[in-house]
């Protein structure tokens, strides 16, 4: 596929945004500014950006306990995203959700779902609605390598398959579910092999190559929009950080980690841009500086924003009754 330099720089900018935001979040967490827990997607940016770049705003994604990359790639606004992590009422979920539940339906992202596998049937149901209404939108379920062992994966993917629903099952295989290597929990070489059970296409791709991810997603999205049903995409990647901010990753062999750091998508893509003459180092540096100061400004505003009023804790439990 021919990409313009502008396209390529945009892929890079999106990945870099996620990278820089997450690096900053990690500091805020360690300082105690972010409450709760924090699951970062450092090293997995190409999956989020590659897939979401193939989507329209009206397409809908579901995500997991590790949703930051997906949220930013799908267009959740940085201010509302950061504010949510800080538990502010200006957050995209008004501070009710937090780091594991960010989302904004106006940008096509449901509140992300922290029960492993829990979002898979929900994305499938969104796709069901699209199909019933004859809309050509697609739904995308992001989930980790750990999610495929859950029964709900099986139930949902099978229904997506038998009804030819417009849905992509993106398995972000970062090798580990918490501390557990995926090879412990399957007899398959690759998790895309699960597609054989559902009679749908399954592909394994280099999830650290943003263009490969983008192109694969595009093909699957076209299939889905054309009424030809779901695709399982296994994107091989690596979590170059802990499962959460408290995890020293001692279960990862050192050479595996080193190799993964070599392969991490942001640096890799940067090298490609430089090598192929799409950008000078100075331009990339400027892009980074710009992003960093944008992020700083957003954090400052978010920090100054009010926390939710405890009196308001009771709101939003029920929708108001509809007049009959």
């Amino acid at each position: 596929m021919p990409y313009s330099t502008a396209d390529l720089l945009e892929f890079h900018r999106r990945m870099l945004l996620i990278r820089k935001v997450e690096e900053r979040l990690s500091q805020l967490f360690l300082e105690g500014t972010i409450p709760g827990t924090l699951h970062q997607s450092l090293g997995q940016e190409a999956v989020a950006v590659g897939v979401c770049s193939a989507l329209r705003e009206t397409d809908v994604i579901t995500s997991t306990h590790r949703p930051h990359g997906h949220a930013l790639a799908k267009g959740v606004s940085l201010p509302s995203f950061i504010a949510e992590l800080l538990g502010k009422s200006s957050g995209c979920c008004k501070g009710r959700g937090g780091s594991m539940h960010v989302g904004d339906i106006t940008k096509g992202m449901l509140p992300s779902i922290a029960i492993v596998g829990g979002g898979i049937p929900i994305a499938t149901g969104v796709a069901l609605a699209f199909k019933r209404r004859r809309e050509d939108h697609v739904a995308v379920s992001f989930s980790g390598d750990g999610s495929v062992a859950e029964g709900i994966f099986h139930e949902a993917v099978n229904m997506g398959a038998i009804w030819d629903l417009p849905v992509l099952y993106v398995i972000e295989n970062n090798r580990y579910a918490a501390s557990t290597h995926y090879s412990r929990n399957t007899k398959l070489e690759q998790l895309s092999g699960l597609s054989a059970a559902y009679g749908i296409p399954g592909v394994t791709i280099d999830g650290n190559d943003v263009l490969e991810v983008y192109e694969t997603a595009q093909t699957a999205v076209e299939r889905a929009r054309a009424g030809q049903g779901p695709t399982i995409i296994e994107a091989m990647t690596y979590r170059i950080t802990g499962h959460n901010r408290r995890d020293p990753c001692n279960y990862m062999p050192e050479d595996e980690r080193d190799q993964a750091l070599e392969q991490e998508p942001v640096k890799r893509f940067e090298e490609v841009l430089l090598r192929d003459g799409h950008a000078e180092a100075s331009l990339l540096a400027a892009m980074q500086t710009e992003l960093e100061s944008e992020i700083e400004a957003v954090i400052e505003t978010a920090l100054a924003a009010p926390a939710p009023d405890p009196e308001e804790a009771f709101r939003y439990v029920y929708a108001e009754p509809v007049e009959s």
Partner: protein
Amino acid sequence: MKKLAIAPALRDGLIEEMRRDKNVFCMGEDISIPGGWGGVFTVTLGLEEEFRDQLIDTPIAEAGSIGLGIGAALAGLRPVLDMQYSDFLFLAMDQIINHAAKLRYMSGGTLSVPLLIRAPVGATGRGAQHAQNMERFFTGVPGLKVLCPATAYDAKGLLKAAIRDDNPVVMFEHKLLYGSKGIGAATGEVDASSEIPDEDFIVPIGKGIIRRPGGDVTIVATLLMMHLALAAARELASQGIEAEVIDPRTLAPFDWPLLEQSVEKTSRLIIVEEGPKTGGWGAEVAASLGERMMECLTAPIQRVASPDIPVPFAPELENAYRPNVRQIIQAAESLVALG
């Protein structure tokens, strides 16, 4: 006006709502297979022709089906899920409680999940896994509404209200009250049919009803137990004890004012519930009323419920499990005897 049993009344409700709003659709196992049964209790029987497009037969995958329902509801549709037997809800608790009930809150009020789950309850000779009353597990879950219609009028009216409601709703229906001849048919001696108006109507969610007025003791009960409470009240009347039978019709939200007014008058309360006594919905009613109305009570609140055992198969054992009219009468007599 026509007189209908619960199964056909529900069917009419579904027909009306599916006609009114094309976003309404039904999902479930065996609900619209040609030559099939219209669900285990015939509620969707004969709908396949007109509503081919609004009926989805699912695989046996309760959690997944409800998950798909949630997704569809989030995207603006109004799914009605048929559970065959409510016992299978245990397979889908995560989707219902962790997702359907919470997504509105988690999204800061930006989303809603207009999902209705229909789930038959009650012990009917099928042993421990097709017999439970599941109301207790959903009542008190923030974000959910819980309905328990005891008559065909309420079944239809609550169904229609639930379909139009923007919240996730679980409606429990009692197998012995359907009056259907479905493949899971179980004959109850109780007639729950009603005169059903020809016009569109709903029964508002959260409004109970006085099934029988009386000044001596209040009996609160739902579903099959409501009918047993009425039978008990009739017998009690012959002994000069006037029981007021309250059918809350919905357990969440619960019509506290109606019950409180009744207890203010009678100063005695009996709660009748099918299902183990410990931790049943009746516990909340007793605790809550006790907390607020202790001074008006002349006697302790009594709960008539099943013993704390799984539902046994043999009819003799099942009869010992299911609360009966005799027990209700005895509870009332003992309360009145206390003064």
